[in-house]
């Protein structure tokens, strides 16, 4: 009786209601998460399984909702930047960039050339750490413990480098409207130049150890097919879309900042499966290194350290209006839409998180697969839960 009353009280819980009502005979409804080792954080997925086969799966969000958009409406324009580092801890700099880019567009601010280069270098390094984190954690989801240690070995070196100009290691917030907070020092550039050949030598080892492994290939090949049609319907971007064979990358298709000055490719795979997304990400790491190399070569001299030209004060007042700016993050297209009413505080901030769209394709991709495949598909989407819940 009491259980029934509880159900009555939970009528507002769409997921519970939907699943309880539609449960078939002989199936089992399990909660994967919010505390589960391979949902990486607090994602909850309600799964109806028949034996081990998934009949229905539904991601449930809201366990890490921190009201970032609402917070933006109460903070000053400059004060919102640290929030962006916390939205996606994997690729924090891309979020930083998307926000300051939107504000710069609104205010019509030109960024000094050197600052643009530094932004590109740091964001690409951050993309490497993001993909390395994903790579280690994904293989961990598939049951191999060791690769994450190797990935973190390299990631640690990048964090040591990025720590110098940004003073933080994970939740970066060193982007400023109109430029950057700090310039690179000579040691930092030297470290970057030595890291690239080191990492280039390490990548083939990753392929030898993991990509060619027969167990891994059997686990991820042809699993979790997300084709172009699905990507369009759900709005998937980033490696998920490129894994479906669409060469869409914001850096190439809507070039922002100085990305049109670099020569790099957009890796794609036609297989649409988890292995395709895996290979796209590994190939992207190589392309990121190419961009970093070119940017380091073309880097203009410091000239008195002008990386923030005529920077507005923290309590800036952009003119009334609206602006949208998007960048390519590690997980896909990051969009920030800001509206100003001419005051010290934004009128509205809307964040477009790629992980949210990518996750929504999961339910369809996972239906009919095994429970172990669901873990493989979930991992291949590269989810960062704080970004999805915001």
């Amino acid at each position, binding site marked *: 009786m009491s259980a029934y009353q509880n159900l009555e009280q939970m009528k507002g819980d769409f997921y519970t209601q939907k699943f309880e009502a539609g449960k078939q005979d002989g199936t*089992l409804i*399990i909660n994967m998460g919010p505390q*589960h*080792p*391979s949902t990486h954080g607090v994602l909850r997925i309600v799964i109806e*399984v028949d*034996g*081990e086969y998934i009949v229905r799966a539904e991601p449930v969000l809201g366990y890490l909702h921190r009201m970032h958009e609402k917070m933006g409406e109460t903070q000053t324009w400059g004060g919102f930047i640290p929030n962006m580092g916390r939205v996606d801890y994997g690729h924090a700099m891309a979020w930083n960039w998307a926000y300051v880019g939107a504000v710069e567009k609104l205010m019509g601010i030109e960024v000094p050339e050197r600052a643009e280069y530094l932004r590109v270098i740091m964001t690409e390094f951050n993309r490497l750490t993001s993909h390395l984190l994903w790579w280690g954690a994904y*293989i*961990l*989801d*598939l*049951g*191999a*413990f*060791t690769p994450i*240690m*190797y990935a973190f*070995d390299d990631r640690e070196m990048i964090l040591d480098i990025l720590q110098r100009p940004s003073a933080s290691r994970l939740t970066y917030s060193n982007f400023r409207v109109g430029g950057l907070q700090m310039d690179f020092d000579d040691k930092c550039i030297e470290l970057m130049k030595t890291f690239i050949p080191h990492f280039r030598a390490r990548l083939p080892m990753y392929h030898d150890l993991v990509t060619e*492994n027969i*167990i*891994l290939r*059997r*686990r991820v090949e042809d699993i979790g097919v997300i084709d172009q049609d699905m990507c369009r319907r759900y709005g998937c971007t980033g490696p998920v879309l490129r894994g479906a064979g669409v060469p869409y990358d914001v850096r190439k298709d809507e070039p922002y900042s100085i990305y049109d000055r670099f020569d790099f490719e957009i890796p794609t795979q036609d297989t649409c499966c988890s292995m395709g997304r895996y290979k796209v990400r590994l190939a992207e790491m190589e392309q990121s290194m190419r961009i970093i190399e070119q940017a380091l070569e073309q880097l203009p001299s410091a000239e008195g350290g002008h990386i923030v030209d005529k920077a507005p004060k923290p309590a800036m007042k952009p003119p009334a209006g609206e602006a949208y700016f998007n960048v390519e993050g590690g997980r896909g297209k990051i969009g920030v839409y800001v509206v100003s009413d001419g005051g010290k505080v934004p009128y509205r901030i809307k964040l477009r998180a790629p992980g949210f769209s990518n996750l929504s394709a999961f339910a369809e991709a996972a239906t009919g697969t*095994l*429970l*172990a*495949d669901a*873990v493989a598909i979930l991992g291949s989407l590269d989810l960062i839960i704080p970004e999805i819940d915001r």
Partner: protein
Amino acid sequence: MNAFLSNLIPLIIAAVAAMIWLGLNALVWVYCERKFAGHIQRRPGPFEVGPHGVLQPLIDGLKLMGKQLLTPDNADAVLYWLAPLLSMLPVLLLFLPIPYGPVLIGMDVNLALLLILAFSSFNGLAVILAGWASNNKWGVLGAARAVSQTVAYEIPLLLTVLTVSFMTGSLSLLDITVQQGGHIGNWFIWKQPLAFIIFIIAMFGETNRAPFDLAEAESELTAGFHTEYSSMGFGLFFMAEYGYMVVMCSVCSVLFLGGFNGPFPGIEGWWWMLIKTYALLSLMVWARWTFPRVRFDQLLNINWKWLLPLATVNLLATALIMKL
């Protein structure tokens, strides 16, 4: 009465010795596994407790004992606590018929192989009980996996063991070892290479070790059958796992690697047995920290489509050659 006592006293001594040996091996291999894993992963492994962290497993054991024993709501308490005991106790028995020397054997049983195969199935039963009784959906899924897996992997194991007993005409491990005496060429690995490989693969499946650790698969089923166990409930499963590993590797080294016989005549001794067993255990640890986990249907496919037909063909061929 006297005859009874004279049989009983050595048995008790052997059982106590087996217990100590099991405890020792579990401690050594918990340490070795963590150390191996550390070095595979480019880190030192346990390092703080004692020189090079050798006391770490002891401290871990103490920590486990200090934890609270929790029984989940609506769990079947009797079955729930019976399961870890059922997993642990048969392991003690399994050490008795394993020969470490012509005299250094707990109990020379004629049907030693049968005894080992029969009692090692208790582990599967314990896993099923644990998963079922703990009133947890992940536990049930783990138990369901364990049922199919244990049933499947016992058959090729049995078939490979049978080939060796066909050749020796005995089920006693001591007999089998003695027949491989002399030099390294007499070891059965040369006469039965296929059986050796099948045994090694089936051994991984039978002991629930990665890449075949489907019953606990922590990234899919949180911890599978032992999700709800705390304290020594978990500790016993843990020790039993290492116990079964040591038993299976010992049996493998007796069947195929000549047991306590050395590679040359005249140097046989218990240390050979130890070296071979530990080498096989290192192989298991190495595999665990290197390979991803296979999927459940793949696990069963490996068994039913490859191991079982190959083992059957191997057995029939052996029988045919023996007959000729």
